[in-house]
C-alpha cells in the first residue's frame, strides 16, 4: 500500500503541489489524470524517490521514504518498476542489455538465468528475438514496450506508467492498454498510471483520481467518474474547452 500525506512541492516560484493526499491499495490499477503540466509526472517521481517533497510524507508499505538515505531508498526502489514517458531506454546499450540492466544490478542471477528472464519479459510484451537491436532501430511503440519489459524484469510489486499511450498511434495505444491489463492479471502487481487519455483511463483502471491546481480534486471508480457532477472533472473527462478549468491561451 502506498499512502501520500499532504505533499507540498515548489520549483522556485512554480508551486506544483498544495497538499496532495492519495492512497493506493495493493492490487488495484489507479489512474491519475490531469492536464499537461499539472504535475502528474512530478507526483509519481515523488513516490519512487526521484524527487523530494518540500513537506509531507510518503509511505510505501508503511515505511516513510522521504527522509531515507540513499542505500535504504535503493532497497525500497526494488519494489518499483517505472515506465518513463519518453521510454528512456539507454541508447548506448542494446535491447537485451537494457532489459537486463536492473537484474544485473541485483547480482542474484547467473548470466544464463538473466538471458532466460530477458527472453521471458520480451515474450510477455510480444516482442521476441529483438535482443540485439539498438533502441535507435525501434519504433516509438516498440520502445515503450521494451521499456515496459525493462520495468517488469526485476519483478516489482508496483509498476508506474507515465503517459504510456501518449505520442503513439491509437491501435498501438490499445495494444499497450491490453498489455497493462494483462500484466496486472498475470503478475498481480499494483499499477499506477498517469495519463490524460480518458479512453485508456476508463479501460484499464479500477480507481481514478484527478489532479488539478496542486490537489487531488476527486477520486472514484470509472463509472462514478462517468456520471460525476463535479464540474472540473466533467469538463476534463468529456474534453471540453467550456467550463471552470481555464487554459492559458496566449
Amino acid at each position, binding site marked *: 500500500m502506498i499512502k501520500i500525506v499532504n505533499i507540498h512541492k515548489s520549483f522556485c516560484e512554480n508551486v506544483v503541489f498544495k497538499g496532495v493526499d492519495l492512497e493506493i491499495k495493493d492490487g488495484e490499477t489507479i489512474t491519475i489524470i490531469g492536464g499537461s503540466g499539472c504535475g502528474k509526472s512530478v507526483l509519481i517521481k515523488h513516490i519512487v524517490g526521484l524527487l523530494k517533497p518540500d513537506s509531507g510524507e510518503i509511505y510505501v508499505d508503511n515505511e516513510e521514504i522521504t527522509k531515507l538515505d540513499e542505500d535504504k531508498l535503493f532497497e525500497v*526502489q526494488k519494489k518499483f518498476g517505472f515506465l518513463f514517458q519518453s521510454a528512456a531506454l539507454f541508447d548506448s546499450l542494446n535491447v537485451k542489455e537494457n532489459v537486463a540492466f536492473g537484474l544485473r544490478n541485483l547480482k542474484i542471477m547467473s548470466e544464463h538465468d538473466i538471458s532466460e528472464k530477458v527472453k521471458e519479459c520480451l515474450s510477455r510484451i510480444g516482442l521476441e528475438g529483438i535482443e540485439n537491436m539498438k533502441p535507435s532501430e525501434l519504433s516509438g511503440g516498440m520502445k515503450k514496450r521494451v521499456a515496459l519489459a525493462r520495468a517488469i524484469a526485476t519483478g516489482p510489486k508496483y509498476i508506474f506508467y507515465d503517459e504510456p499511450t501518449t505520442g503513439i498511434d491509437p491501435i498501438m495505444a490499445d495494444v499497450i492498454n491490453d498489455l497493462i491489463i494483462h500484466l496486472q492479471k498475470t503478475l498481480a502487481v499494483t499499477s499506477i498510471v498517469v495519463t490524460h487519455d480518458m479512453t485508456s483511463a476508463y479501460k484499464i483502471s479500477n480507481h481514478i483520481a484527478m489532479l488539478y491546481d496542486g490537489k487531488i480534486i476527486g477520486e472514484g471508480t470509472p463509472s462514478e467518474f462517468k456520471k460525476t457532477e463535479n464540474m472540473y472533472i466533467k469538463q476534463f473527462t468529456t474534453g471540453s474547452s467550456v467550463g471552470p478549468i481555464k487554459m492559458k491561451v496566449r
Partner: protein
Amino acid sequence: MKIFWLIGEKFLKLSEELGCAYKMFMQILHTFLTGKYDKENTTYQMVLIGVKSIPVILLTSAFTGMVLALQTAYSTRNIFNEPIYIGSVVGFSIVKELGPVLTAVVLAGRVGAAIASELGTMKVTEQIDALYTLGTNPIRYLAVPRFISMVIMVPILTIFADIVGIIGGFFVSVYKLGIAPVVYQNDILDYMRTEDLFHGLIKSVFFALIIVTTACYKGFTCEGGAEGVGRSTTQTVVISMVMILVSDYFLTALLVMFGVG
C-alpha cells in the same frame, strides 16, 4: 538602481551554481574514494577520452613546438644577431605552460563537450532517472568513470604533448635554422629540472578536474530538450576554457611560491 539589482541577482545565481558544482565535485570524489564505481565503464572511458584524443593532441603540440622554435629564432636573431637558446625557450614554454594548457583547452573542446552533451541528452530523455529506478547511482555509473579517466589521461596526454612539442622544435631548429642537434639538446638538458616537468603535470591534473566537474555538472543539471543540451555543451566549453586560463595564472604563482618549477 536597477542595474545594482541585476548585478546582485546575477552574482547570487553564480555563487549558487558554484556551490552546487562544488557539491557535485565532493560527491564524485567521495564515491571515488569509497571505491564503489563502475570499473568496466572506467576502462571504456579511458580509451574514449585518452586514446582517441592522441592524434589531435600530437598534431597541435607538434606545430606549437615548431612555431615556438621559429619565433624564438627570429627574435633572438634580431637581438643577438644569431638564433640562440632555442631549446631552452621551447622546452620551458612547452613543459611548463603550453603543453598542459593547450592539451587542456583541446580536451575541453573535445571531451568536455562530449561529456556534457552525452549526460545532458541522458538527463532530458529521463535516462538518468531511469538509472536511479533500476538501482544504479548515476554518479557512480556515469560521473566517476569519466572523472578517473580524465585525471589519469590528461597528465599522460600532457607528457605526450611535451615530448612531441620538443621534437617539433628540434626539427625546425636542425633542418630549417641549421642549429646543431647537440646544441638544441644541451639548451634543454642544461637548464631544465624535474620540478619543471612536475610543475606542468600538477597543473594538468587541476585542469582535468575543472573540465570533468564542469561537464558533469552541466550535463546532470541540463533542462529543456535539444536546445538545453546545446546550451549546456557550449557553456561547458566556454566555462572550462576560461577557468583553465585564469586558474593557470594562480596555479603557476602558487607552485612557484612552493618551489615547484
